[in-house]
C-alpha cells in the first residue's frame, strides 16, 4: 500500500506545482510530473508478485503463463507516454510564443500586460 501512497504523493506534488507556481515553465514541469505518477501507478496496479515480463519464449508451458504480469495496462501506458511527449511539445511551443510576445514567463505579469 505504501507504493500507492508514494505514487499519490508524486501526483499531488505535480498538482501543487501546476496550481501554485506562477512561472509557466514550472507549470509544464508540474504536468510532466503528474504524467509520470499516473503512468507509474497504472504499471504498479498490474504488477504480480514474482512476475515476469509478458513475453512468450520457446519451450514455455502454460504454468509459466500464470506468472506473467498484467499486459493490458502496459499496452495502454505505452501509447500514453508518447502522447505525453506530444502534449509537452505543444505546451513548450506555447511557452516560447508567450515569451516572444510578452518577454516573461511570469503569469501575473502577463495578465497585467493584458490589462
Amino acid at each position, binding site marked *: *500500500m505504501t*507504493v500507492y501512497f508514494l505514487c499519490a504523493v508524486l501526483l499531488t506534488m505535480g498538482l*501543487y506545482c501546476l496550481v501554485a507556481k506562477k512561472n509557466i515553465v514550472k507549470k509544464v*514541469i508540474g504536468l510532466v510530473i503528474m504524467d509520470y505518477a499516473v503512468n507509474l501507478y497504472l504499471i504498479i496496479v498490474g504488477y504480480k508478485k514474482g512476475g515476469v515480463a509478458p513475453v512468450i*519464449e520457446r519451450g514455455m508451458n502454460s504454468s509459466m503463463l500464470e506468472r506473467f*504480469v498484467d*499486459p493490458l495496462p502496459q499496452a495502454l501506458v505505452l501509447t500514453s507516454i*508518447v502522447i505525453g511527449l*506530444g502534449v509537452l*511539445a505543444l505546451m513548450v511551443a506555447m511557452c516560447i510564443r508567450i515569451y516572444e510576445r510578452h518577454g516573461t514567463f511570469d503569469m501575473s505579469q502577463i495578465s497585467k500586460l493584458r490589462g
Partner: protein
Amino acid sequence: MENIAPQLYTLLVFMVVGSIIAIETKNLLSAVISVSAVGFALSIAFLFLGAPDIAITQLVVEVLVLIILIRGTILLDNTAIEKGRDTLAMVASLIFFGMLLGFGALIFGSTGFPAFGEPLMRVSKVYVQTGLPATYAANIVASIILDFRAYDTLGEATVLFASILGALAILRRTGKAGEEVVSA
C-alpha cells in the same frame, strides 16, 4: 526477481526528492534537469516492474523531453526566477493538498482496492492465454496494442498527430496569407 520492494521504494523516494528539487529550485535549467532525472528513475522502475517495452519507450521519450524543455528555456534570456515566493498562497495550497492526500489515502485504504502484487487479471487472462495462437505474436503487449486493441491505438495515434500538428501550427513563422502578401 522475487522481491522487488526495496528497489522500488528506493527509486520512488529518489523520484519524490527529485520532484521536490524540480518544483522548488529557482533556476529553470536545474528544474528541467531534475525532472529529467525523475524520468530516468521512472524508466528503471518500469524495468523492475516487468515492463521492458515501457522502460525502453520511457528512456527514448525522456531524452526527447529533455531536449524540448531545454529548447524552451535555455535559448531565452533569463532562466532564473527573480521574484520571491508568495508565502501565504504557498502555505494555503500546501495545507489543501496535504488534506487532499490524507483523505484520498483514507478513502482508497478503506475500499476493496487490489493490493500490491495481486492484479485483477479478468480481461488480461484471455489475452495471455490466446495471444500466441490468435495473433502469432510472442510479445503479449505488442499483440494487445496492434491486434486486440488496435482501434484504441488508432485513436491514440490521432491524439498524438493532433498535438504535434498544433505545436507546428503555433511554431510556424509566417502563415499562408502572409506569404501571398509578400510574394504579391
